[in-house]
């Protein structure tokens, strides 16, 4: 792939400080959010619907006005700048292409607004259409293109004017699963080639993990945790984070950890200090892939924590199987990912579930 002339050499950092948006309801839509997005970074705002991630993106874009706080691009406060002066590209879930214009006219739109000379417009439109692999579609109208192609046109239109950053508002939400995968790869490639700061909003944790340099996890208008996909998956800080990204076995502790011991029901488990929260409302979480099953009352290796369990169900998921467990006396639902050696499990069978101490996390509830 040839390197494009549209590539920006300078990219922009975005800084949100104590950003709040209140629509006059009991709880603000965005509640005192501070976030620093590095130049050239692929930052994903992840969260369930209503968590404030889209509102935050709209605040960055300038479509919504701040109730409190500031937003700065490269240190310059843009809080009161209208959207058309912020110089940001934006992708929408429903593409938002202008239906009365051809592909070329759509892509030329931001350049014409910037009074770029005609020959240069033609050159840059051709270049960016090559970048998104839509050469030869210049004269088509949006309704003659498939959903995936339309989103590529929208992508071309959003990056052709070298925006300070590209904001992506669930751009793959309207596409089917296969196409989503293709376009994810496309977006990653274009992020690499163009080097612009990307701010991506999604509720799909797989998409977030797959694409992002860092993820800001939103819940109830606040950021629960910011970090690399690995940080969030391996070292969740809150129960919400542990549950939103992947499955977790959750043991809600009734007492705060005492030194290097935690209690759950009548089990006393080792817990190394510094492996997460140590407050009053704490839960111990373990990923299903870290849980091993041993015969009931069987031997567990040293340095493992164990709990009695019953096999309640076995799920076949193609590349692996998942055992659904009832854990402990209270029968809390848990999961363990099985490898081939556990093909002899039967429903209702009592087992011992164990995991290495260093694979567990203590998180705030």
């Amino acid at each position, binding site marked *: 792939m040839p390197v494009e002339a549209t590539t920006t050499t300078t990219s922009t950092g975005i800084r949100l400080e104590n950003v709040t948006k209140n629509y006059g309801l009991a709880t603000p839509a965005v509640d005192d959010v501070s976030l620093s997005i590095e130049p050239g970074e692929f930052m994903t705002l992840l969260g369930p619907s209503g968590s404030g991630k889209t509102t935050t993106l709209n605040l960055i*874009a*300038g*479509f919504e006005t701040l109730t409190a706080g500031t937003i700065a691009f490269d240190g310059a406060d843009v809080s009161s700048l*209208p*959207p*058309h*002066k*912020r*110089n*940001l*590209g*934006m992708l*929408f879930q*429903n593409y*938002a*292409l*202008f*239906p*009365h214009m051809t592909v070329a006219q759509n892509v030329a*739109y*931001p350049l014409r*607004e*910037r009074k770029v000379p005609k020959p240069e417009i033609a050159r840059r439109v051709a270049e960016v259409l090559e970048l998104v692999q839509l050469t030869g579609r210049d004269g088509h109208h949006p309704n003659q293109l498939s959903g995936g192609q339309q989103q590529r046109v*929208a992508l071309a*239109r*959003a990056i052709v*004017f070298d925006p300070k950053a590209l*904001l992506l508002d669930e751009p793959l939400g309207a596409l089917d699963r296969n196409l989503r995968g293709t376009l994810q790869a496309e977006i990653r490639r274009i992020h690499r080639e163009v080097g612009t700061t990307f701010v991506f909003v999604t509720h799909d944790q797989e998409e977030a993990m797959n694409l992002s340099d860092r993820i800001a996890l939103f819940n109830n208008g606040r950021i629960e945790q910011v970090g690399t996909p690995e940080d969030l998956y391996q070292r969740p800080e809150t129960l919400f984070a542990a549950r939103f990204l992947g499955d977790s076995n959750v043991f809600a502790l009734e007492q705060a950890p005492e030194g290097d011991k935690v209690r759950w029901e009548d089990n006393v488990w080792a817990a190394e200090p510094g492996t997460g929260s140590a407050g009053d409302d704490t839960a111990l979480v373990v990923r299903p892939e870290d849980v091993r099953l041993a015969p009931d009352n069987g031997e567990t290796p040293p340095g493992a924590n164990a709990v009695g369990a019953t096999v309640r169900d076995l799920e076949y998921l193609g590349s692996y199987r998942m055992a659904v467990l009832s854990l402990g006396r209270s029968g809390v639902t848990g999961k363990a990912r099985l490898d081939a050696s556990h093909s002899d499990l039967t429903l209702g069978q009592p087992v011992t579930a164990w995991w290495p101490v260093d694979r567990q996390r203590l998180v705030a509830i």
Partner: protein
Amino acid sequence: MTATLTAPKAAGKARKVDAVPWWLKLVTGVVALYFVLPTLFVIPMSFSRATTFQFPPKGFSLGLYENFFTNPVWLDALRNSVVVALLASLLATVIGTAAALGLHNLQGRLARFARTMLMISIVTPAIVIAVAVYISFLQWRLVGTLAGYVLAHAAIGVPFVLVAVTSALGGFDPKLLRASASLGAPPVRTFLRVTMPLISRGIVTGAVFAFVTSFDEVVIALFLRSPALQTLPVQMYNSVTVEIDPTIAASSSVVVTAVTTACLILQFVGSRRKSR
């Protein structure tokens, strides 16, 4: 007038329904005839040689047309009507479009109230509006002035534009406004390059209806007329009640033909756009 307004509906029905039962064709035929019948009498009468109203017409002559297009009273009235209708429909289109855009995304009680107020002239009896307009325009010295006609006719044209543009906005994706803003276009440029082209059919439809409404309005015009300034419908009314002048047959035919042509062109342009 009425016949031309219902024509698009009938055409739309015929296109959508596959097999039309015979009784429906019959009902449609009767209703269509009911609307068109007056025209079927007036147009032949306009070619009559008689100097009074007669049907069936006696002989063939273009005399009434000659009188219509050479008599300064009729010509002035025609010109006044065209000027008033053009200005009134222009004003109504600007106000109606702006109102439709402004009210489009509002749902509150105030927005509903504003919409009702803008629509109220459609359900108010013409004579009530005419008297109210006459009394206030007397004080403001607008009776018998071009501005008076234009303001009054624009007010009754606004609802047509509001309805037409509102329905055009129904298929308009508001995300396009955000997309345009994000691409660097200020609101006015966004309106000119994105919104207006996409709702142009609604705007044009509303403008034509506003024009026709003004062109054919007689009650308010009767109150506002002055010897120096009166519109074609008022002159037609005079010609029948005062002069018994059969030229009205020619003028009616001219008006019907002009308005029908305007509506047909509108429909033709509309259907061509749709098929693209």
